[in-house]
């Protein structure tokens, strides 16, 4: 190809890539704009501090749902992240014959299971034996949903850590396990955090699995083995009602949910930023 053609192709591709990025961002801006336009008016101090009020009464809020979502996310992370990250590490590093293949395969399958089916599973396995809905059941369902995302992302990112890094560490006589934990994982850390954040963002907005597990609560929860309020549940209940005031609160709830994920994401990046941000 003549140099001019190659330069032209280069320019074209750059524009296409920029256009792609623009098209990706456009619907997001449209949706954010929609939420802001519809719901910004309902985001006030009351929203963060008050419990839900019946229709027609001013001053209702989603304080319990906000706290509930936070609790569910932390619990789900505690349950799901260790298995997820360690699982990903295993898949990337192990020399075993069949287990890695099986685990990877099943992780991909699990990723495609509708969240409501996972909710039904959690209902069968936790709610029925306990004879009650609970935050624990909800967190379990969310952890199961997070699992494949964290596992696969961790695996891919760990694979991409250059072998030269590992070899250098091994050549220094560092035992294998230390190499994995102190060299490989930190190098892949930024990428793994992205995977974790995507997983948390995903489960933060899930409604269906919580319907039969965490159940929802109009009031403050009374323990982790009791029903608990959650933002997606409250948003859903309000969004499908016939009242405009509740609709506005639903949009406001969505805004707050996104804000919540923003804060958590930001904090996580802050906590793990530093020296190891991938080999560039």
């Amino acid at each position, binding site marked *: 190809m003549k140099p001019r053609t190659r330069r032209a192709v280069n320019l074209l591709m750059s524009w296409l890539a920029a256009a792609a990025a623009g098209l990706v961002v456009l619907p997001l801006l449209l949706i954010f704009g929609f939420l802001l336009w519809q719901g910004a008016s309902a985001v006030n101090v009351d929203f963060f501090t008050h419990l839900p009020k019946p229709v027609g009464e001013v001053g209702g809020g989603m304080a319990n749902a906000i706290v509930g979502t936070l609790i569910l996310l932390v619990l789900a992370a505690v349950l799901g992240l260790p298995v997820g990250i360690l699982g990903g590490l295993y898949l990337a590093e192990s020399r075993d014959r069949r287990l890695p293949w099986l685990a990877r395969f099943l992780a991909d399958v699990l990723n495609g*299971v509708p969240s409501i089916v996972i909710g039904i599973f959690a209902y069968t396995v936790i709610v029925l034996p306990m004879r009650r809905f609970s935050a624990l059941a909800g967190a379990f369902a969310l952890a199961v949903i997070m699992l494949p995302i964290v596992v696969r992302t961790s695996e891919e990112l760990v694979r991409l850590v250059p072998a030269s890094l590992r070899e250098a560490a091994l050549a220094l006589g560092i035992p294998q396990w230390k190499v994995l934990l102190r060299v490989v994982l930190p190098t892949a850390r930024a990428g793994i955090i992205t995977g974790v954040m995507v997983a948390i963002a995903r489960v933060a907005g899930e409604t269906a699995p919580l319907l039969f597990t965490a159940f929802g609560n109009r009031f403050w929860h009374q323990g982790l083995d009791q029903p608990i309020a959650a933002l997606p549940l409250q948003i859903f209940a309000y969004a499908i009602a016939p009242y405009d005031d509740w609709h506005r609160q639903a949009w406001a709830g969505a805004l707050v949910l996104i804000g919540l994920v923003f804060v958590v994401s930001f904090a996580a990046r802050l906590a793990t930023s530093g020296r190891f941000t991938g080999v560039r």
Partner: protein
Amino acid sequence: MAVVAAVPRVEAQATPRNFGDQVLGVVLRSAALVLVLLVLAMVAAMVHASWPAMRAFGWRFLTTSTWDPVAEQFGAIPFVYGTLLSSLLALLIAVPLGIGAAIYLAELAPAWIRPPIAFLVELVAAVPSVIYGLWGIFVLAPLLRVWVQPALGKTLGFLPLFQGPPYGVGMLAAGIILAIMVVPYITAVSREVLLAVPNTQREAALALGATRWETTRIAVLRYGRSGLVGAVLLGLGRALGETMAVTMVIGNRPEVAVSLFAPGYTMASVVANEFAEATSDLYLAALIEIGLLLFVVTVVVNALARLLVWSVGGPVKAVRE
């Protein structure tokens, strides 16, 4: 501590000689086992729960199109078709856009624009499905009905894909909404994959005189291919299993239709729509069997995707340097 490890091979997983290695080995293996056992338990529970339907319908479940809860006749074809078509449509839109955007964010964009956009893309994954659904009903569907579908009908109406009355809701709306929901996953993970490609790869290509795009194509994309496939499969999984948003814009009609303008129905939607109200045992079992079927479809599609990529360019494994 033995310093001389001989000549370390690339796959340097020497036999674990010390306690630390053994402990870590056990821990990692257990994590994987937890995952495997969890999924197997789920499959077992679903098979058990759908047994009454399997016994009542057998293979007919996969070959009939009727879905009649009153007469208790259930067949899965329209749902399988709907799931596959909507997910295919979503990926057709989302993969080029997502990877293109990832390339832009990782390679081409000016430094100041990268963090905000990357962050924005991740945040969108947090928007609850029901909000996507409502946005779809109030913004997307009217847009399609009033502008896009008539235009498509006029220009490409000779194709059976674009025939039929413009309802706004339907397969096209579902595919677009799914694409919007799936794109953040593909973009975010692809971006991380591309960023993780060592600079030495890029430098080598540039040193040979490649343009920026050629560098990306030859050095970066190829090196990160396994990761990119992983990102796409992640997006695919989301598309196959998405319920709320899809069910609000797809029209929910259990029929197989060629046109993208026609309403359809997906497996995940029917489970979400009818599970809470299904009270007869056979009805519940049929719904759970649909869930099981979705498992199977996911497996098959994943396998096919890997096969496709493998046949195009060699085994999907990261190239170590």
